[in-house]
Structure formats: structure tokens, C-alpha cells
């Protein structure tokens, strides 16, 4: 009968497994455990364009991105990341998008297809980054472009080939190009003496022959508010004058005409004219704006210049708007229009050329995103209009006429992220906590009522889960969970970003839902520090993040403590003067458990040090901590020296100051190329294993010091020197000279440290014996206490001041590609091996396992038995770009600035976050998900099998009992 019982059980289990075919279709995890946000940055130039019946908004941004956005949804149709380039002009016309940019020693002009974003051609000229540049379409339908690049006026045709080129000379900084009347004009501000003025070079459009060059508008400068280029005219107002002078480019007689604003605006008095400003409206169009104040109100008028049949210049008012406290912009696409968006509440009004009146409202949270600073009007394919506004905090809004709410909004603040900190979140409430939250106080008095409520809450949760299961989504909808509630595995955390636009924003690491955002200042947020972690009880002090931001307008530094879960400002201090050079979280806490932060200003002597929060209690706490354990920090205060300091308190115990502890001078002829690596926290260097077990069971003990710092120096004789310093004693631990290496903006030095391993990458012009003979080289250095197995420092006290010199094992590899950031993964107990994540310039995040980067890999021979037992594989120079190890799979994570890894509660799993232009979050399991069930594991099947077995046992038990009795009495 036991056999029979087994058969029943197996049969039921088989049935349960068979059911898996219907229930077990697991979606790919891509996009579920990771998320990606493609961003463009804060636009500084916007243009609307309709081509072939589709309207799009084109933007050039401060992150060097040219993007086409859908006018109705704000989604990115296409984008091009011109990393490291500053985009000057953006022009859209004839189904083409033109962007002129400069960077990396070149001025470039690129033309893309407006619809698909496909590059049609590109043109580049060697130029300094300070050289002015400009570009315009010729406008004859050919798609040719006339550009100023590298000190020459160039006409570039299809294919990017220059048709002609005219050297402009150094008399002026030619930053404008105008195409009119068969000529191309380069306009620039005159250099040298002579009181300014504009210089014009006129060239024949057909062959580039220099037709004329002359000066105009003496004493004027474009962008000063008194001079504009409007179409083929230059318009300016002499200081103290109330009339405008207008010069038609190329005209010789008369050189200029006089115009009076009264022609378009009757109410203008001479004193209003004296304070009025001129602004450009639509590039290439003969239009401009006049802004003036009248009776305490600001008005903006759009004006069009026209030419009479006699060659005289006339003016026509297109539209006028009151623009108090508003950002003004224009509408492109030929229908000249003016839009004003109120900086205060997002209300907008627009006037079309034909007297068309539009209004609407772009509702947004001004406290989180700042006032509107830029506006534009975009025409849609159907002839409608959209108002587009950009706030100081980087929010891009688009609204339709008559609507109160924005049609769409893109928060681009995080494309300018400068720093990020991860905050642990409180776990989700238990059934008892839910019941307590839902019950009324009277019911809470009875234990039985609380018990019933708790079960009711649990039953509701189970019912919701079952309902979700029936609807086909077994996992609870993440959207239903608030962004500030964590999970039991530590996957959900808050990523608190500081951005270049002064915004501090918190996103949940699972799904990227925004928890809160707040604009602290009008300058960049330099640093975000978690000053107090989440406490286990709700009644405990809340988690706190401290943000250090610059206030550009007030020339001050704002240091604010924010409630990490709500973004509420708990304390804010404004410190006058420039921002601190270093923001150093200290291993000491104030009485309320908030971590202290040192703000350090570098000067030629000892750095100035301030403790935040600026309270006597904080200073005392710091002094007590510094007396217990000396606190050190280092600063690289000039090009050839790194200094270390010790935080010291005076006799009264409440005036912390920095005392010089050591100085490391670079050898003569060397200058600092990469400052000492950032000091995060000691946990990044913690290790589960103190040593490394070799194949013969002997141990190499790791040199585990949290104070190792890496810096790179450029050598005058060529090459790069890399130094590993001890932060406490300033002692040189290791140095390496890469004679053929080069470090610069195009070839950054990137490094990361974890446990006893330092990984860095740098460009080599020559790699001996390698093919290709140049490229990026990844160097790995492992630090051990001794190169003799089983030998270790036996002293009981492990002091940074008195450490033995480490034994360093290094190896160099051909890098998988140019990397912009490196990071080692971190897990809760440091047992899991640490992958090194390479953020490649191609947009891939590549995770390489630790054994691949092992400097002990045997070179030139297969590993011996001992080496095999140690897990070593034979050395091969290239680090493979294995598609299976690309964490970002299909996504292009562009222009990554930093990669951060954080542990979860599961030892196998680490969070990896990359930010730069784009945001990307994922989870990695470097040693496999050894402590988790496989995603294909069906809990439903497990439950069904268990139930079936239980039912089988119940059925079979009486039969088995009868059999046993019969056998006993046989």
C-alpha cells in the first residue's frame, strides 16, 4: 500500500507540474527588475517644425543633446548625444535639423533628417573651444549650410563637403551668420580697441568670393539688449538715444536708417525707450522683440521689419503682451508669435501674427522646479499651437490653449545630476500595523477587535493578491506601493539626486517613481549625503539627507537637511561666500543621531573647516569623536601637491580646525591629472575574507585599509604616473608610470577601489606588443600584506600611521572600451565576489567578474594544478565585451558620470545605479542568485503539490492502516 500511496502522491505532483505549462509563462525580467530613463537635459534652444504632416519639438540642451520630441506626448522620437560638445545654434527647416557645436578641439556642423533623426552629413573644423561659431541654412531648398567654423566662413553642401571657404581673419569674433540676397554675411563683435562694434564680412553665396567687409554699429555688442540681428538687418540703439538705427546687411548707401518705436507702440515715452531692451525672436526672420516697462508693468512687443519698394525699412507690430514676471519666447515655423509664460503660476498667453489670441496654464509645482525661465510656441500639424516652457529647475512643460494642466511634462533636472545617495526605506507595514492604521481608536482598545482587524487586513491583502493572480499579474502592482515604502529584501530604496539646476529629487530604485523633489537654490547641488538612516520605528527621528547647494544669485552656499521620505526642509543654513571645496561626512553624530558633516574650504594655508549643523553640540560631538579616533582628510590644493589634514580641537574642545598632517609633493615635472579618488565610506572596503586562499591552502593576507586613495599625475616628459597613497599617513604605497599613456578631457582617468583591489583605466597611445597598438588599458592592482603566503602583520593594533608597506600584484588588460565611470559592486556581507561595472562611452554598462580581472592570472602558460584550484584562468590581454554581461542590455545609458552600487538585504544581490545624462537602475547577482528562488519557480505549483500530497495522505492513511493490521495478523 505504501507503493500505492507513493503512486498517488506522484500522480498528483505530476498533475501539478503539468499545470505549469499553462501558468508558468514568465515574462522576461528585462524592464521589470531594471529601469531606464532616457533624458535630454535642460533645453536652451527650442524649435517647432512640421514636416510631412507631423509636428515635433526640437531641442538643443545644455547636456549636448539634440532631440526631437513628440509635440503631443513629449516622448523622445530621436536624440543624438554630442557628449562633451556645447551646442550653439539649432535650426530646423525643410525637413532638416541643423546643429552647430564645439568641443574636443573641433567646431562641428551636423544635419539630420528631421523625421527620422538620421544623420545626413557632418562637417568638422579644427577650432579652439573659445572660438565663436555659427551656422544657418542657405534657405534655397538645397539643404546647404553656411557656417562659421575654425575662423572661416564655409558653405557646406550635401555630404559634408565644403563648397567654398573664406578665411575671416582675427579682427572680430564672428558668431553670427546671415544668408540674404545671394550673399552670406558673417557678423562678429570687433576685437581689440575701438569701443566694440560689429564687423561684417560679405561673401558671394555662389563661390565664396569676398564681396565686402565693413564695420557697423560702433560701440554695440550683440546680446547687450541694445543690438539685435533680425533677418537681414542689424538693429541697434545708441546708448542714451531713443531711436533705433537699422542697417540692411550689404547696403552701402545709406549705411543705416533711423526708426522710431512710436511707429509700432504709441504709448512709448522717451524715458521708456531709454530703458527698453531688444531681443531676438526667430532666427533668420526679420523679427525682433522690444521689451519695456510702462507704469510699473513690463510689456513685450514683437516687431517685423519690412522693406518698402523704395528700399527703405519699415516696421510692423505683430503682437504685444504684458510680460510681468514672465518668460517670453517666440513661435517658430513662420507664424511669428509671442508667448509669455508667467514664472509664478505657469499661466501663459500668446499672440499670433494675425492678432490670434491664445491662453492656457501650465500647472506645476514651482517649489520643486523653480520659475519658468524659457518659453516657446510650437505649431502643430493641424494648425494648433502648443506653449512650451522650461523652468529653472529643468522641467519642460507643454500645454494646449485653453487647458489648465500641462499636456505633458518632462523632468530633465536629473540629466544634470551631480551627486546621488541611496536611502534605505522602512519595510512595508505588517498586517497588524495596517490594522492599527485602519482601525478607529475605540476598536483598538479591545485585543479581540485588533486581532479580528489584523486578520481582516491580511485576508484583504491575500484577496487582492489572488485577484491580481487571476488577472494575470502575480506580482503586486508596484504602482500601488508608495514610493517611500520599502520591501523585505532591500531592493526598494530612495535614490536622492542633487542636480545642476538646484533641484534635489528622490526616486524609488524600483521603477523610478518620484517620491519628492525640491529646489534648494538657483545654483548646482554639489553634494547629497545621507546624514541619518531610516530607524526601525515610525516614532524615531526621520531619515535625513543633507544637500549642499550653491546659490548663484546670492553668492552663498545653502546647506539643507531634508526629510528623506517627504523632502520637507528640516533645517537650512545659508553660508555666505563660495561653495566649499570638499563636503566630508564625518564618522561622528550629533546628539539627535544626525551625522556630522565637515565643509572644507581650501586656502593656501590650512583649509577652513566648518562643522554642520553649526551648533555647539555638533562641534563638541566632533571633538569627542576626534579625540577618540583621529579624523583625517586630504585635499589636492594645487597642481603638484596633495596635503593631508587631521581634525583637531582646541583646548576648550569646541573649535574644530584642520591641522596639517602630511604633504605629498609630486615629483618635479608632474602635475595632477586626476585628484584623489572620492572617499565614500569604510564599508566600501570591508571584506568578508581577510585573506586569499591559494591552491596549496596557504593564504595571502589582503592589505585591507580603508584609507588607500588613488591619484594620477601627468608627466612633463610624457605619460601618466599613478600613485596609491595612504590617506592617514600620506605614505606612498605604490606607484606606476605609464609612459605612453595620456589623460585629458577626451581620455579621462577612471578608477575604483574595493577591498584590496584598485582598478583604473587610461588611454595609451602605444601599447607594446599589442594589436591594435593603441587604446584604453585597464590596470588592476591587488594589495597584500606580504607577497609571502601565510605571512601577515601580527601586531594587535592596526593603525594607519604605522602600517607596513603592502605587496602589490598588478596586471594590465586591454579595456573593453572607453569608460566614463567604474564601480565595484557591493553586497550586504561582502561574501559575494565583486564585479566591476564599466560605464562605457557607447552607452553599455558592462559588468566584469572579479576572476577575469585577477592580476594573478598566469601569463603565457596554462594554470598549474594549484592555480586551477585557486580558480585562476590563463591570462589573456583583452577584457571581453561579452553581450551577456551588458547590464543595460538594449538600452543606451548615455554619458554616465558615476556608477553607484549598494547592498540589498540578500547577500547575493547588489543594486547598481548609473547616472549621467540617462538614469539606469538594475540588480546584479555576481555569484548567481544563490539565496533566491529562480524566477521560474512556481509558488502556485508548490502550494498545489503540497495540498495534493496532503489530500493523498488523508485518502491513503485508512487504507494503509488496514493493510498494516492485516499484515500483523496474517
Amino acid at each position, binding site marked *: 500500500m505504501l507503493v500505492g500511496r507513493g503512486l498517488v502522491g506522484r500522480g498528483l505532483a505530476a498533475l501539478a507540474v503539468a499545470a505549469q505549462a499553462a501558468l508558468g509563462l514568465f515574462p522576461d525580467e528585462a524592464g521589470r527588475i531594471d529601469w531606464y530613463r532616457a533624458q535630454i537635459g535642460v533645453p536652451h534652444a527650442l524649435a517647432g517644425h512640421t514636416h510631412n504632416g507631423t509636428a515635433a519639438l526640437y531641442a538643443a540642451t545644455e547636456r549636448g543633446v539634440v532631440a526631437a520630441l513628440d509635440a503631443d506626448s513629449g516622448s523622445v522620437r530621436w536624440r543624438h548625444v554630442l557628449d562633451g560638445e556645447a551646442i550653439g545654434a539649432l535650426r530646423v527647416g525643410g525637413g532638416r535639423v541643423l546643429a552647430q557645436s564645439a568641443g574636443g578641439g573641433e567646431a562641428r556642423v551636423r544635419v539630420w533628417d528631421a523625421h527620422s533623426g538620421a544623420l545626413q552629413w557632418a562637417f568638422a573644423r579644427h577650432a579652439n573651444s573659445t572660438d565663436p561659431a555659427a551656422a544657418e541654412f542657405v534657405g534655397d531648398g538645397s539643404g546647404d549650410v553656411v557656417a562659421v567654423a575654425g575662423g572661416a566662413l564655409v558653405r557646406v553642401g550635401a555630404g559634408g563637403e565644403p563648397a567654398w571657404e573664406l578665411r575671416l581673419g582675427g579682427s572680430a569674433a564672428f558668431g553670427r551668420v546671415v544668408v540674404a540676397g545671394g550673399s552670406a554675411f558673417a557678423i562678429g563683435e570687433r576685437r581689440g580697441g575701438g569701443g566694440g562694434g560689429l564687423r561684417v564680412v560679405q561673401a558671394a553665396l555662389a563661390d565664396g568670393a569676398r564681396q565686402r567687409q565693413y564695420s557697423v554699429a560702433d560701440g554695440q555688442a550683440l546680446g547687450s539688449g541694445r543690438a539685435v540681428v533680425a533677418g537681414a538687418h542689424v538693429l541697434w540703439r545708441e546708448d542714451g538715444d531713443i531711436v533705433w538705427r537699422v542697417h540692411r546687411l550689404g547696403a552701402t548707401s545709406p549705411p543705416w536708417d533711423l526708426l522710431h518705436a512710436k511707429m509700432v507702440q504709441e504709448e512709448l515715452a522717451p524715458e521708456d525707450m531709454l530703458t527698453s531692451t531688444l531681443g531676438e525672436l526667430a532666427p533668420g526672420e526679420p523679427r525682433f522683440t522690444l521689451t519695456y516697462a510702462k507704469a510699473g508693468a513690463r510689456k513685450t512687443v514683437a516687431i517685423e521689419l519690412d522693406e518698402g519698394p523704395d528700399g527703405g525699412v519699415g516696421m510692423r507690430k505683430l503682437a504685444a503682451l504684458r510680460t510681468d514676471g514672465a518668460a517670453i519666447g517666440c513661435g517658430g515655423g513662420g507664424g511669428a508669435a509671442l508667448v509669455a509664460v508667467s514664472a509664478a503660476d505657469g499661466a501663459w498667453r500668446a499672440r499670433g501674427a494675425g492678432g490670434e489670441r491664445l491662453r492656457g496654464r501650465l500647472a506645476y509645482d514651482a517649489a520643486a522646479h523653480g520659475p519658468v525661465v524659457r518659453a516657446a510656441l510650437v505649431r502643430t500639424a493641424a494648425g494648433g499651437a502648443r506653449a512650451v516652457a522650461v523652468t529653472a529647475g529643468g522641467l519642460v512643460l507643454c500645454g494646449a490653449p485653453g487647458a489648465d494642466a500641462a499636456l505633458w511634462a518632462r523632468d530633465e533636472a536629473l540629466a544634470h545630476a551631480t551627486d546621488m545617495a541611496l536611502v534605505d526605506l522602512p519595510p512595508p507595514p505588517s498586517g497588524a500595523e495596517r490594522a492599527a492604521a485602519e482601525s478607529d481608536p475605540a476598536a483598538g482598545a479591545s485585543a479581540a477587535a485588533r486581532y479580528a482587524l489584523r486578520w481582516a487586513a491580511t485576508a484583504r491583502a491575500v484577496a487582492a493578491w489572488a485577484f491580481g493572480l487571476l488577472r494575470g499579474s502575480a506580482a503586486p502592482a508596484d504602482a500601488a506601493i508608495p514610493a517611500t515604502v520599502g520591501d523585505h529584501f532591500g531592493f526598494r530604496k530612495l535614490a536622492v539626486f542633487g542636480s545642476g539646476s538646484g533641484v534635489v529629487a528622490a526616486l524609488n530604485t524600483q521603477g523610478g517613481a518620484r517620491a519628492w523633489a525640491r529646489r534648494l537654490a538657483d545654483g548646482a547641488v554639489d553634494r547629497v549625503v545621507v546624514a541619518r538612516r531610516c530607524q526601525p520605528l515610525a516614532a524615531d527621528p526621520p531619515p535625513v539627507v543633507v544637500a549642499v547647494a550653491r546659490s548663484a544669485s546670492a553668492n552663498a552656499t545653502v546647506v539643507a537637511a531634508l526629510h528623506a521620505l517627504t523632502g520637507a526642509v528640516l533645517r537650512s543654513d545659508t553660508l555666505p561666500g563660495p561653495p566649499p571645496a570638499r563636503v566630508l561626512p564625518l564618522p561622528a553624530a550629533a546628539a539627535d543621531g544626525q551625522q556630522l558633516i565637515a565643509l572644507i574650504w581650501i586656502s593656501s594655508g590650512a583649509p577652513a573647516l566648518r562643522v554642520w549643523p553649526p551648533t555647539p553640540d555638533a562641534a563638541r560631538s566632533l571633538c569627542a569623536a576626534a579625540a577618540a579616533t583621529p579624523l583625517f582628510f586630504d585635499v589636492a590644493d594645487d597642481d603638484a601637491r596633495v596635503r593631508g589634514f587631521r581634525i583637531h580641537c582646541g583646548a576648550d574642545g569646541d573649535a574644530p580646525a584642520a591641522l596639517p598632517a602630511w604633504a605629498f609633493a609630486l615629483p618635479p615635472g608632474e602635475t595632477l591629472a586626476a585628484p584623489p579618488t572620492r572617499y565614500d565610506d569604510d564599508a566600501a572596503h570591508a571584506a568578508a575574507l581577510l585573506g586569499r586562499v591559494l591552491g596549496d591552502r596557504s593564504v595571502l593576507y589582503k592589505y585591507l585599509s580603508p584609507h588607500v586613495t588613488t591619484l594620477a599625475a601627468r608627466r612633463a616628459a610624457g605619460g601618466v604616473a599613478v600613485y596609491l597613497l595612504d590617506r592617514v599617513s600620506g605614505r606612498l604605497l605604490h606607484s606606476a608610470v605609464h609612459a605612453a599613456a595620456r589623460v585629458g578631457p577626451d581620455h579621462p582617468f577612471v578608477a575604483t577601489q574595493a577591498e584590496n583591489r584598485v582598478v583604473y583605466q587610461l588611454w595609451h597611445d602605444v601599447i607594446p606588443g599589442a594589436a591594435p597598438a593603441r587604446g584604453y588599458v585597464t590596470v588592476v592592482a591587488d594589495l597584500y600584506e606580504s607577497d609571502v603566503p601565510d605571512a601577515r602583520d601580527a601586531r594587535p593594533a592596526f593603525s594607519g600611521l604605522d602600517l607596513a608597506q603592502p605587496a602589490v600584484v598588478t596586471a594590465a588588460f586591454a579595456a573593453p572600451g572607453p569608460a566614463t565611470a567604474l564601480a565595484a559592486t557591493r553586497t550586504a556581507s561582502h561574501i559575494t565576489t565583486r564585479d566591476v561595472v564599466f560605464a562605457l562611452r557607447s552607452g553599455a554598462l558592462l559588468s566584469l567578474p572579479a576572476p577575469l580581472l585577477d592580476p594573478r592570472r598566469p601569463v603565457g602558460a596554462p594554470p598549474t594544478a594549484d592555480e586551477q584550484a585557486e580558480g585562476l584562468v590563463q591570462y589573456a590581454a583583452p577584457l571581453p565585451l561579452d553581450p551577456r554581461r551588458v547590464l543595460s542590455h538594449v538600452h543606451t545609458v548615455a554619458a554616465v558620470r558615476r556608477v553607484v552600487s549598494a547592498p540589498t538585504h540578500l547577500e547575493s544581490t547588489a543594486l547598481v545605479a548609473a547616472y549621467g545624462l540617462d538614469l539606469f537602475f538594475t540588480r546584479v547577482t555576481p555569484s548567481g542568485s544563490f539565496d533566491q528562488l529562480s524566477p521560474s519557480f512556481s509558488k502556485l505549483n508548490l502550494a498545489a503539490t503540497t495540498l495534493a500530497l496532503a489530500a493523498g495522505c488523508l485518502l491513503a492513511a485508512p487504507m494503509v*492502516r488496514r493493510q*498494516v*493490521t*492485516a499484515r*500483523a*495478523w*496474517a
Partner: protein
Amino acid sequence: MSNAVQLLAEIRQSSERRPFEVLKLAEPLLGSGGGLGTGADAWLAYEQVFVAAIDDGEMELARAVLGRLHKRFGAGSQRVKRLAGMFNEAAGHAAEAKRMYGEMLAADETNVLASKRLIAMLKAQGQLGEATAQLVAYLDTHGNDFEAWLELSALYLRQQLYPQAAFCVEEAILQQPANHYFHLCYAEINYTMGALDVALKEFLRVVELSTDNVRGFYGVRLTADRILEAKRRPKKEQPAWADAAPQPATLERLSELATERLLSVYGAAGAAPKRAAEAWLQQS
């Protein structure tokens, strides 16, 4: 009621007979018309009550219970047959019982319970020769049953067949070499046979395995004294094993040691037992 059934189960599990208590517990249950519980355990309880009934001479009750078991498991059940055999034994129908056991063994010669029942019956009837033959046949099949070896040893001893009895105890020692009681039996049989050298070794093994074993130490002392006595005889009169026996000095020390340990053990019980032990040891 359930308490009574539970108590019956406890008595059963402790392998105790306690027939009076079993019947006292079971009779109200049976008298009330109810059974002795449900399931497989109920039939074990009936068997227990049956054995208690024949122990107590309650033959009517035994007959009724046997009838119920017979009805439930039928005439083919070997276990019921054995109980019937036991009933016949108790009723004085030895021949009938023997026939029934014979039938059971004819059907399955490895039926342990039937064999043992048959041997026990023959032994009780004083048919030692037949009982010995049956037990030898049983041990041919079940050689690892050390209790059966001890039983056979006892049967041989009753017939003064000491070498055979010693052989049986050797078999038991092979199976459980750390059991000091087996060594003690073996030592005593050898002492009886006059193999004093072996007896001394075995007594010493007993005191090695069992701390302060009085019977062991007394054996050591007796054996050592007997060997000393033998060694003091002229060479020609000494037994063959005398040369292999320990030297007289050793034997004397062993005797002293045994005496000292015996006095120590009895002294721990009080002055009077110690005096009695001293007097007794001086006599022996």
C-alpha cells in the same frame, strides 16, 4: 473509557503482563458491550486481554476473546492460531496445542512465535531432550537470537552438558561481547568444568566490564585461590593448564585485590554487612 484503553496500551508498551490489572481494566469495557477501542490498536488490546485471561485462568473470557479474533481474522491467521495453541496449553490440551504448533511450522518453518511456543511448552512438560532438539533446530535458522542461545545453554546445564552449555554462551558473547553477564555465565560454567585458567580470565573480564561486580570479584578470588591450591600440589598432580596459569604471586595479589574490593563494596553498605562479609571471606 478512553483512559482504560490508554492504560492498557501503556501496559502493553512496557512489555509487562500484569494480568490482574489488565482484566480489571478490560472487563468493564467488554461487559458494557463496547469494544477495546478502534483501529489496529484494538486488536492488540484483545490479544493482551486474551493472554491476561489465560494467565488468570479466566478460560471463558479467553474463549470469547479468541472467538472475536477468530471472527475478525479468520482461521488462516497464524497469530490467531498461536493464540489458540496457547489456549489449548492453558486448558491442558498439550497434544492439541503441539499439533497446532506443528501445523503452523509445517506451513512456515521460520515461524518464530510458533517455534518458541513449542519449545516453551516442551520445556514446561519436562521433555528437555525434545525441547533441546527443537531449540537447536530453531537456532539453525535464527542464529542471531542470543536469548535463544542462553535458553539452550540453560537447557544443557540442566542436563549437566557443560561443554555444550559453554559453547552456547560463547555464541551469545560473540554477538554481545560487552555484556558482562554473558562473561560471568561463561566463567562460572568453566569454573564448574574445572577450566580454572579460562574461568579466571573471564571473571577478570567481568570485573573489567562491570565496576565492583561482587559476583565477579568473588569468582576471581575463588578461582585464584583454587589455582594457587592446584599449583601448590606436586607437579605430577597439577592439571594441564597449570603452567599456562599466572604466577602464584600474581594470583595472590589478585585474590587480595578481590578481597579488598569485596570488603570495600560491602563496607559501603554499613558496618554489619562488612563484618558479615569479612567473616564469610575468612571461611571461604
